[in-house]
């Protein structure tokens, strides 16, 4: 019996030792996994370290990581968005990344987007923001101000056809609505003197935000903007030639090309503010990149893989080609910046605000969506709806 136990123990110890031979496990989505497998082959050839790239649907990665990481069964590296960082870091699941000299190769705002509590938690890869995508056959000249846009809309809108000048997801969808609110000064969270976000300073019902919201309400009331538009409806209208412009992001481009539309990318028209100046709509910036698990047994290895094998022009270019978004890796950005689409997204993106990554953002979306739907349905004035939303957000966050 004692012998049996001895054999079992030896076997288990053997297993544990075997498990210590380093191996990187990466969870990536379907667009990045194939590229990462190529990079991993190169890494394995140079270092002898095995890399396993597990393909997981993008929107599943965060939840599965939260479940798996604390048990020690999780991956070493995940692909994800910068706005996951707050939740993951607050849960103690992410390891800070020490860029060293590599820091200079990355767009400062992209690195900032991945930082939380003064630490960098991600190697940024691609950025994305929304702007106008328009159908060149329907828009003779892209309006530069919202007033011109309204003029153009009054000309071509015909609900019976239907034909609309501008359509965007609003059923409700604050992400696509935010540029209208931010143009004249609306914001989600204000900043503390040290640059961190202050969740109790909510700027969604300030004068600038109300101005944008009023514009939205007026357009719906006048019949210039269809309400309750979902992703599918927006696509159907734009691809069917029933909408001249949409507010959307790089993810719509591939299908726009497939639909045979001669498209252009332009800035969202500026909105005239209370003081008579024109405010540029500021979209949210989203950054995608790579994060290292704090439960990884191979943190140095993971950082080495990311900083010396992924953060190279070859690898970043391969990632870019699978999914063309402005790269956060500056040398790669230089190479692709001649692409007119990338330049056009960047034009709007330079006014963008990184979407807040603090976990308190969870309290914002629902209340904000409710406010948008109340305004779109004409059940409340922008003032009533947004002020109530701000009160609800503050109550949910136990401010004051």
């Amino acid at each position: 019996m004692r012998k049996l136990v001895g054999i079992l123990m030896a076997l288990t110890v053997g297993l544990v030792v075997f498990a210590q031979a380093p191996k990187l496990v990466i969870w990536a989505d379907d667009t990045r996994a194939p590229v990462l497998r190529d990079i991993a082959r190169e890494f394995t050839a140079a270092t002898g370290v095995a890399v396993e790239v597990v393909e997981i649907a993008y929107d599943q990665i965060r939840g599965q990581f939260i479940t798996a990481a604390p048990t020690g069964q999780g991956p070493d590296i995940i692909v994800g968005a910068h706005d996951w960082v707050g939740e993951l870091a607050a849960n103690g699941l992410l390891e800070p990344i020490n860029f060293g000299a590599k820091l200079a190769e990355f767009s400062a705002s992209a690195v900032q987007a991945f930082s939380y509590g003064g630490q960098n938690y991600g190697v940024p890869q691609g950025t994305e923001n929304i702007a106008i995508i328009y159908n060149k056959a329907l828009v003779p000249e892209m309006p530069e101000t919202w007033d011109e846009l309204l003029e153009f809309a009054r000309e071509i809108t015909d609900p019976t056809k239907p034909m609309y000048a501008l359509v965007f997801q609003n059923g409700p969808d604050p992400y696509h609505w935010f540029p209208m609110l931010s143009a004249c000064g609306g914001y989600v969270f204000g900043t503390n003197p040290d640059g961190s976000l202050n969740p109790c300073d909510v700027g969604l019902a300030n004068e600038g935000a109300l101005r944008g919201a009023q514009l939205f309400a007026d357009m719906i009331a006048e019949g210039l903007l269809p309400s309750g538009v979902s992703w599918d409806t927006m696509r159907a209208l734009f691809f069917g030639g029933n909408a001249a412009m949409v507010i959307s992001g790089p993810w719509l481009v591939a299908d726009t090309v497939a639909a045979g539309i001669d498209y252009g990318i332009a800035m969202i028209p500026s909105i005239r503010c209370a003081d008579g100046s024109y405010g540029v709509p500021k979209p949210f910036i989203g950054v995608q990149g790579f994060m290292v698990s704090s439960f990884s047994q191979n943190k140095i290895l993971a950082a080495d893989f990311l900083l010396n094998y992924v953060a190279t022009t070859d690898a970043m270019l391969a990632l870019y080609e699978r999914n063309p978004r402005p790269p956060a890796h500056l040398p790669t950005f230089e190479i692709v910046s001649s692409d007119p689409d990338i330049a056009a997204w960047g034009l709007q993106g330079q006014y963008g605000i990184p979407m807040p990554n603090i976990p308190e953002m969870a309290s914002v979306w629902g209340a904000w969506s409710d406010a948008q739907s109340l305004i779109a349905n004409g059940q409340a004035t922008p003032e009533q709806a947004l002020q109530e939303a701000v009160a609800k957000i503050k109550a949910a966050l136990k401010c004051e």
Partner: protein
Amino acid sequence: MNGRSLLTQGLKYGFVALLDAAALWAVIALLFRGDYILLAVLGIGTLLLNFVILSRRAYPLRFLLPGLVFLFAMVVYPIGYTVNVSLTNLQTGNLLTKAQVIAQLEGRYYLPPQPETFTFWAFRNAQGKLALILTASDGRTFLSQGNELVPVDLSDPRFVRGEDGTVTSFDGYTRLTLPEVYQSLGALEALDLRLGEEHVRLTSVREFGTFLRKYQYLPDQDAVLDLETNVTYYAKEGYFTSPDGVRIEPGFQIYVGFRNYLDVLTNPGIRADFTRVFGWTLAWSFLSVFFSFAVGLGFAYLLNDPYVRGRFVYRSLLIIPYAMPAFISALVWAGMFNTDLGVINRVLGDLFGVKVRWLQDPMWARTALIFINVWLTYPYMMIVSLGALQSISQELFEAARVDGATSWQRFWRITMPLLWVSVAPLLIGSFAFTFNNFTIIWLVTAGRPAVLGAATPAGATDILISWTYRLAFEGERGNQLGLASAVSIIIFIIIAVISAVNFRFTRALEDVSRSV
């Protein structure tokens, strides 16, 4: 003993052996992970299985056991788990256990006032022991002895030099090549070398650096001391908290007793919206089940009539809504009900010149939801009713006809009571399912239109479960799983009570039908 029973005996013992081997493997794995609760459950379960298979007396249990195992795994365990979670503060920021948080904090370091970095050569001897030679940026060299770093003079002849002048071996240690360094990174990363007061740790594949420890756990005070600032953080409400209220992230899970339940039951905002949401949930479940049963039974009655031609074709066609994934249908319906662009309003507009504010007006949104749900569920009711109708003996109808009963009377006096016996339990099941049918609500309206002035994010079409979702995931920092579990348990109790009352009610009907 004949060959056949020998074979079955062999199979039986083989099966038991395999099972026990698997269990043993799992037990060892769990032992190493320190998961003692699961270990106990697994151990007891395996012993029970052995007893049942090997003992003659437990023979009948053999056939019940698989069912019981699944009952435990699929019903009892999840409920127990949910109850357990509802007593904790599990939420964003309080995910890890306290031991995990302490381990993580004690592994945090900060840079000393004069940080130093070192390049290194790693060596290994025949016994597999690691040794390191570190070279500081100013050229000083150190050799690791255990966890201490001692200054060393590399001109000492015991250090054998290679062609490029670097040390390749010493005292039986040979230098690792870069791939070998990579293979040993796990061990190198775990090293905690000391140089005086400072810790020297691996910072990248090529460098070590000096650090100072940031936190120390003080078990007697249940607190964490910040060695950099000398502030003590005491364990409080799931966080190590400083006297002036600063919390160290991450926090940890703690048991909070019935606080989540009290939060739900005493929060004035939640109480104010509860009645409205609960009322709509009841109406939604009742009306959905009622109409889908009425429609399903209507079709079933027609299709059961032998005089209807092409019954098979109709039957197949009418089942289509049931065969389509509800996800797709619900999204398609949501599009069709769009006020400005949906096909329903286009048709209504062309025919009658009206524009119904589907999905935007509370009453119309509710109507649309019930309509969609009836569309999705009537085929089920039709199938069930068809089966039940066919089991009713035709003699009863003939006898009734001879007695001069009208078809109306035959339906209400014969068909319905007999149908009711077999269908009623299914209706109760449907009611309970619809009560919690999160999918349809979430895909079509997501609980909207919003209600102006509601204290919590409760929309006009939110049912209890979707409202729970919004309370738990759209509040504070998201993922308030403790609170969500508490509300789930409350909903579970509500449904259990409703179902119990319903079953009582139908049992009474069963007695009536027996006396028909």
